Each structure stands twice: as C-alpha cells, then as structure tokens.
C-alpha cells in the first residue's frame, strides 16, 4: 500500500470540536494513479499535508509506503518526505530566483541518502524528457513560462525517484494545450518510474488519466466546509 489511513482525525488544538478531517479508512495501492476530487476548502490541503508529513495527525494512523508517519518525529517526517515523496503545487513550485537546474539540485540537497554523482546528467535527462530546451536550463525560474515552470516542477518532484507523487491542482493555472501536455508527461514519467500518484483537483475533466477516482467528501466524514 502506498497510503493507508485509519481512523484519521485532524483538528487544530484551539478548536478540538471542529474536525477538519475525519477519515475512517482510505488507501492508495502501490503503483496506482488516484484522482481525488474535492472542491476548495473541503480539507484537501490538510489531507495532503498529513500524507506528506508536513502536519502531524491529531489522532489515528497514517501509513505511507509502509511507514507509520504518526510514529515519527518532525525531523524524521521531513527526511521521509525528502526521500520518498514528490510534490507538485498549483503554482509557485520553484524558487523564482534560482534556475531550473538549481531548483532541482535543491530538492536533492535535502535528500541525504542520495548521491550527488551523475546528478547533472540525471537533471538534464529529465528536463529533456519534459521538453525544456537547454537554453532555459540556466534562466531564473521566474523567467520561464507557467507551462515550463510546471514541467520543471515535475522534474524537481521526481529527481529523488520518489515512490509517491502528490499533485495539488497542478494544472489549474495552465491553458488547455499546456494542461494536456503536462498531464501526458506526468503520467508517462510516473509510469516509467513506477511512482504512485495522488492527484487532487476540482477539475473532473482530468479524471480520465487515472485508475481510480475518489471524492474527498465521500471518505471525509467531517462534512463541514470552512
């Protein structure tokens, strides 16, 4: 199992009665590409923060790639994330003043176990696959188009060969053509790297790329919108 949530609850300490998330059981199997549908404000970001270990669960069990995140301390979760999880946001995926190469290198920097050997080669291969021309490798990220930035973000997310890729509305700032382009490279790279994908969006049109489609409102019982 890539992800296994059990009796998971999350609430902010100040408001223990107001549960942002309340999930009985939810799983993502290995090598599956799962689409989670959710309107904004239904706890999507909180769910992703819990799975990636940025937030600790208030109660319950969070198992990701066979490891109990709820048993780890923050440092261990940070290391775990760096090593095993790739993350793509809706926007602001790159440090604007670093170039594409440095942005990707930075992701490797926090993953202590991986060697720096051949890093240059790996980055260049990924960027080529993602259709970023060599001219753009050394431009500050802010100078790249949004489409290019999102594709560099895929490279950044995959450089440490993570077993799980989390994407949080990564296409909502892209136009039709860029979106299709983004989705097809993302899915094919996930296929070749044998990476599970957890893709969250409110755009049902993208669901055709995925093996399974879940609605967050169905497995999150908190049911409250805030």
């Amino acid at each position, binding site marked *: 199992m890539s992800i296994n949530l059990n009796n998971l609850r999350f609430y902010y300490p100040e408001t223990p009665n107001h549960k942002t998330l309340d999930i009985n059981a939810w799983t993502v199997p290995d090598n599956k590409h799962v689409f989670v549908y959710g309107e904004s404000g239904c706890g999507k970001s909180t769910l992703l923060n819990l799975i990636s270990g940025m937030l600790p669960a208030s109660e319950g069990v969070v198992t990701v790639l066979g490891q109990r995140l709820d048993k780890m301390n923050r440092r261990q979760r940070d290391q775990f994330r760096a*090593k095993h999880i790739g993350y793509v946001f809706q926007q602001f995926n790159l440090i604007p003043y670093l170039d594409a190469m440095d942005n990707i290198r930075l992701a490797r*920097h*926090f993953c202590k176990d991986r060697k720096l050997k051949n890093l240059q080669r790996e980055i260049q291969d990924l960027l080529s696959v993602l259709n970023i021309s060599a001219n753009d490798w050394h431009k*500050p990220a802010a100078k790249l188009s949004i489409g290019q930035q999102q594709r560099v973000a895929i490279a950044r997310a995959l450089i440490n060969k993570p077993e799980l890729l989390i994407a949080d509305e990564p296409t909502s700032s892209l136009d039709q053509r860029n979106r299709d382009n983004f989705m097809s490279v993302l899915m094919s790279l996930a296929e070749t790297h044998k990476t599970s994908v957890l893709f969250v969006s409110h755009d049902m049109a993208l669901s055709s790329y995925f093996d399974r489609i879940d609605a967050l409102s169905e497995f999150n019982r908190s049911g409250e919108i805030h």
Partner: protein
Amino acid sequence: MFMNLAYKSLLNRKGSVLLTLMAMTVSICVLLGVEHIRHQAKDSFGNTVSGVDLIVGARTGSLNLLLYSVFRIGNPSNNIHWHTYQTLASNPNIKWAIPISLGDSHKGYRVMGTTPEYFEHFSYGDRRPLKFTQGKAFSDVLDLVLGAEVAKILGYHLGDELVLAHGIARTSFSIHDDKPFKVVGILEPTGTPVDQTLHVSLQGIEAIHIDWQQGVKMPGKTTLPSDLRHQDLTPESITGIMLGLKSKMATFKVQRDINNYAKEPLMAILPGVALAELWQMMAMLENVLRFISALVLGAALLGLSAMLLASIREREHEITLLRSIGAPPGFLFMLIELEALLITLLASIMATAILSGSIMLLGNIIAAEFGIFISANILYPSNLYLLGIVIISSMFACAIPAYIAFLKASLKKS
C-alpha cells in the same frame, strides 16, 4: 547550496538589500570611525610629550601644571626662581634640565622662552625628536623658531621679522614692538602643541621686558637691540622646568625631593601620569560618542531585521515549497540568519575599506591642515573585537525574523 540560496535570494531583492546594506555600512563606518579617532586621539594625546621624566613648576594642581607647561592652556600660578633651576640642574640624578618661560604671545599663539637644548631633548610620540624643516635652533638673543602650524597659518618664512605681544590675549595693546624677532627655524609638524608655539631664547624673553615694569613699558627708556648683547640677560625667574633623569629608578625620589624643596614651594609631575589623569576627565565625552555610535548601529540593525521580516511575508510560497521538498523549519531559521550574516559581513568589509580608504586619501590633507596624524590601519584588536560584536548583535537582532520564518515553516499560526 545553502550559501547559493541565501546569496541568490539577496540578489533577487537587490533594492531593499542594497539600501539595508548601505545603512549597515554607514553605521559600521560611524562606529569604527569614532572608535578609531578615540583610539588615535588617546594615542596622540598620550604622545604629546615623551622623553621628559618630570615637569617642575610652582606648587599648583598637577593638571594645571601639565596644561600650561605642555598644552599651553591656562596660566601658571607662580614662577620659579632662577637659582632653583640652577640647584636642580646640578643635582647628580638629573641628566638635563630645560627651563621654560611663558607669558607672551604672538597673534594668539603662545611664545615659549627656553634654551637650545630644548630642541635636543624634548620629544613626542614614540620618542620622536623635534626636527627642523627649515633653518636651525636659535642662537642669538632675538632669534625665533616657529612651530609648523604657526608658520603655515601666519605665512612666515625664514628671515621674516615679527614682534611679540605682552600677555596671552589674542589682541593685545602692549606690543614689544621695539624689539622685533627674526625667524631662524621652522619645525616639522608634530601633531602636538609644539606646532602652535613660537620658541625664543630665555634671554630673548628677558630682553623684551628689559624696559618694562609691572607689565607696562616705562616711558623714556629704550634699550636698542644692538645694545642687548652687552647686558646681563640672565632671567630672575622662569615658569617651569623639564627634567631628564639619568636613571628612571630615581624618578620618584627626585619627585619627592622637589616636592619637599624647602626654599620655594615646588611641584614635580610625571607627564605620563598627568596625561592619563587628564584623559580620564574626557572619558565622559568618549562614552557619549560611543553611545551615539551604538545607537546608530542599533537603528541599522533594526532596519536589517525589519527588511528580513518584510521579506518573509513575500516569501511564504518559498517557505512552503522548501518544506515540501523536505527542508526542516530550522533550515529556514538558518537561511534568514545567513542572509543577515552575509549583509553584515559585506557591510563590515565595505565600512572598513571605505574608512581606511578615506583616511589614506585625506590623511595627508588632515595632517597638513590640522597637524593631526591618523593612521589608516584600523584593523587592530579592539576594532576587530568591535566588528565581532556587530556581527553577533546582528545575529541576535535577526533571530526575530528568523524565528518567524521558523514558525511559518512549522505551519504554526504566526
């Protein structure tokens, strides 16, 4: 990578970083400058006189004696008899004794009567003797040697004739205009009160007062300068004596003997001790200067801290992003601190360079205009120590924005 990130992030915010950098540079410049000038002033102050073991005058306060004998400030309380000088000069512990006689002036500059040995034995700074840029020591009764500043400001040259005024007021109505002096020597600049002094022989002082009584010229009596050489011009009294001892070990014994001299109330001071005492009195001013420069630095540090704090607001996405790729919150703390460190280090280097650069450029002009020598070397231990304090306090000041970045990274409400 860490360094690269901090460096490029600063570069990305050129405008605000540059302004903060300038504020820091200016304040560090002020801080170092004040400290340097204080240091230099203290040094040059302490170096006003060297090689003189004891200064003897009529019984008074030690500071008063120091002020009138060395700094030509204020007035002697009384004179010393000439035979006292002779007694001291023949003391076996004393290597040399130079009499000085004050009380006249020229256009506000003090005139000092002494003997030619003064130019041999008096030294300043690190035992630097007096040197002549032009001419030589006086040998005739109405010869005169100018300090560097007097010659420069009043525009006198060798061979010029000038008259002295009775008393020390800038504008005097009693002028010794019947006996003009001739400039025979001009001294090198020393950065000490020597530069502001006109030196004549004791006989010269005696000669101009020959027809005077009670500070007023007696009408009808005129001794012509040509007759002076035939007169006995040994002074009856002098203002003070500078002593050089054969052995430093005897200093306190000789001092005690002079203080207990039975025939006349005398006082002997160690110039170094009296100079230190005098400097102590300026400690207040010194502390005020330091306090002000510390405030300037404090303001710049707050500016630095505020700039970094504002940057965190515009970098929230960056923080989230760094967290998502596994950066621990401590990394964000260190990143902000590193940015503060880079700015402070760069500002310190620039301030040091600007300060020593401008001293190098302006040093000669300052020395020529004001007779003050400022060393361009500002990196001595106490200033390095000061820079260390600056860097440490910038780390403390920027711990606030760094901690806020840390909180944001921990997804805690902040």
